[in-house]
């Protein structure tokens, strides 16, 4: 799984209001390919909102988000049909795994390959099975989400997000529900993804996790980036 995108994910002057309340104001940072950035800040600082804005799940009022050809500008979220480039290159792992409850783990991972990328079923199945195997949940491919443990569900969710082979992976509080041992396993897994050349932006308030596994910390406070690139040891 070699990455082909060589340009960074660029977020420039991102501003977002809800009513009169300013949520984000002039947020600017970049994430390079092969880099794991931890997006840190207190609860409610706007970490998840930034991820959602980058993934075109939430409209914003100012600034731009760019990745190669894909560019998001202020205004309503564009329809899915105009987001193909962005969707192709940006994967998202939600805080709650949000697996599709009516499908097996394997079907969850295959879904985008078969229906968004229109790959043949057998090829999709092979790739999905390999992904689950590489994430250590190959044995659970026939299980439904309700039959998976929290850790297993999260890894299936990561496999699902990785299936279309995105250059950038956004993760929202991936360690929130993990014990220290599983946190370590996840950290190693993310490092492997970075080694493959992906850019990872991980929203977290877990200082230890950031210190252990992130290349860089982007710190958010008072609606702005206060530390746009400090090394994790400085956190």
């Amino acid at each position: 799984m070699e990455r082909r995108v060589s340009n960074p994910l660029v977020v420039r002057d991102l501003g977002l209001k809800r009513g009169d309340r300013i949520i984000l104001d002039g947020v600017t940072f970049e994430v390079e390919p092969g880099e794991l950035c931890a997006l840190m800040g207190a609860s409610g600082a706007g970490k998840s909102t930034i991820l959602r804005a980058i993934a075109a799940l939430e409209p914003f009022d100012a600034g731009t988000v760019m990745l190669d050809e894909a560019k998001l500008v202020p205004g309503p979220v564009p329809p899915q049909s105009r987001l193909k480039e962005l969707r192709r290159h940006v994967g998202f792992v939600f805080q709650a795994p949000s697996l599709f409850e009516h499908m097996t783990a394997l079907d969850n991972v295959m879904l985008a390959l078969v229906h968004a990328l229109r790959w043949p079923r057998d090829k999709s199945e092979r790739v999905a099975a390999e992904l689950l195997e590489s994430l250590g949940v190959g044995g659970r491919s026939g299980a439904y989400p309700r039959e998976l443990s929290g850790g297993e569900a999260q890894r299936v969710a990561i496999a699902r997000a990785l299936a279309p082979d995105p250059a950038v992976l956004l993760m929202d509080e991936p360690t929130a529900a993990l014990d220290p041992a599983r946190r370590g396993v996840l950290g190693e897994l993310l490092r492997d993804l970075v080694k493959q050349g992906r850019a990872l932006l991980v929203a977290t308030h877990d200082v230890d996790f950031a210190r252990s596994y992130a290349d860089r910390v982007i710190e958010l406070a008072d609606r702005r980036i206060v530390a746009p690139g400090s090394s994790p040891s400085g956190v």
Partner: protein
Amino acid sequence: MSVSTPRRSVRVALLLAALAGACRPATPPSGSARELRWGGDAEGGAPFVEADPADPTKVRGFDVEIAGMIARGLGRSPRFVQVAWASIEASVERGDFDVGLSGVEDRPDLRSRHAVSIPYYEFHEVLAVRPADAARYATLRALKGHRVATLGSTQAYAILIAARDSLGVIPISYDDDVHPYDDLVAGRVDAVLLDNIIAERSLRRSGGKGFVIQPEPVATGHYVAVLARSDSALRDSVDALLRDRMRDGSLEKTFRAWNVWNDAQARYIDAASARAPSDAGSPTQNPRSAAAYLPSLLRAAFVTLALSCLAMTLAVAAGAAIAAGRVYGSAPARALLATYVEVVRGTPVLLQLFVLYYGLSSVVRLPAFLAAVLGLGLNYAAYESEIYRGALQAIQRSQLEAGRTLGLSEWQIFRLVRAPQALRLALAPMTNDFVALLKDSSLVSVITVVELTKQTAIYATNIGSWVVPGALCALAYLAFSLPLARFARRLERRWSGA
């Protein structure tokens, strides 16, 4: 025999007043009371029993006058009790009133179950056809393969059922005696078989246009008074009184006043007033055995099942489209669909069936079965759409967002993610609705579709008991609904992984 749709609002007042009377605890039926309680159906209208236009709390008609003659002869005062025509026999046996008198037809099975008076009027079953068909549809035999309408649970209906088997006519049963003639004029049926009084009344109502009455009667029948089986003593008094009124000309006077006197009547009364009760009347139909009704019950059960399945299919498809429109559509589309749901849900399905079948008949003449499928299907679509809308909205936003981040189109998200999960939530209420629809399908008998409940009612009326027909009917409904509920539960269990 007479059940017509009330055309005059005065009848409503009368029906309410009479109904209030009928709902009171029954007073001792006879003997001790100074009143003679007699039951009839004012919905049947003139010349039998109708609300008096001058005083809608009173009734008038030749049956009203005959009831008066009987009461006076017994030294009592008559008191009218409103009862649905089809329920007269059951009500008199229950003791709701002493005498049933509202164009009740003489039949052998009636005599076997109740105390029945001598016939007081002779009628003819006559064919009505459109003027252009007068030459070719002169007899039932000529109507082979054609639709012949009549009122259900009548002698005419029994004749048509027999003619279905022997002559190949297609009987169409109505709940009233107005719509058969409307549908004859509209071309929905090719003939109507009913008694001459109703036929002539309908012809007068239509201004003498639209159809003609064939001169050759198909059969002869008689009107009688019906009493509870145990009331044979009172029946004998009624017989004696009727004979007296035949001899003294009172009956003739009444019939002349109501314009139903004719030569045949004169001959009949001359003969009958001199005869013993047991000789009177010459019923045209033989009673049919219970087993003879099984094929028609099975056929009706199939109609119910087919109708329910087709209507539910329509309801599910239209309901899903409405729900999707209300969740995803533009503001005007949402408003339009919401209006549809509220109007359809807020008005009776019976009214909708009437509008579809009769109301629109000048624009589009739907066959009865199709109108029934459309009426029930479109009505239930409103309810289904609300179930699906609720289920669609119950799917968490994160599920849809996960679909978006994977690059699925909105349609794919709907089809692959949202709808399948919503279906699981909707399954139990949908099963509920299908069972309700199965039972509501009995309403379509108002637009001439003979389904299970209607056929059961016809069967029960003919054999004079609801026990066996009712049990068979209930078994058939349960045979449809129980496996369905079981299937739905199994699906639910499978989907929930239990």
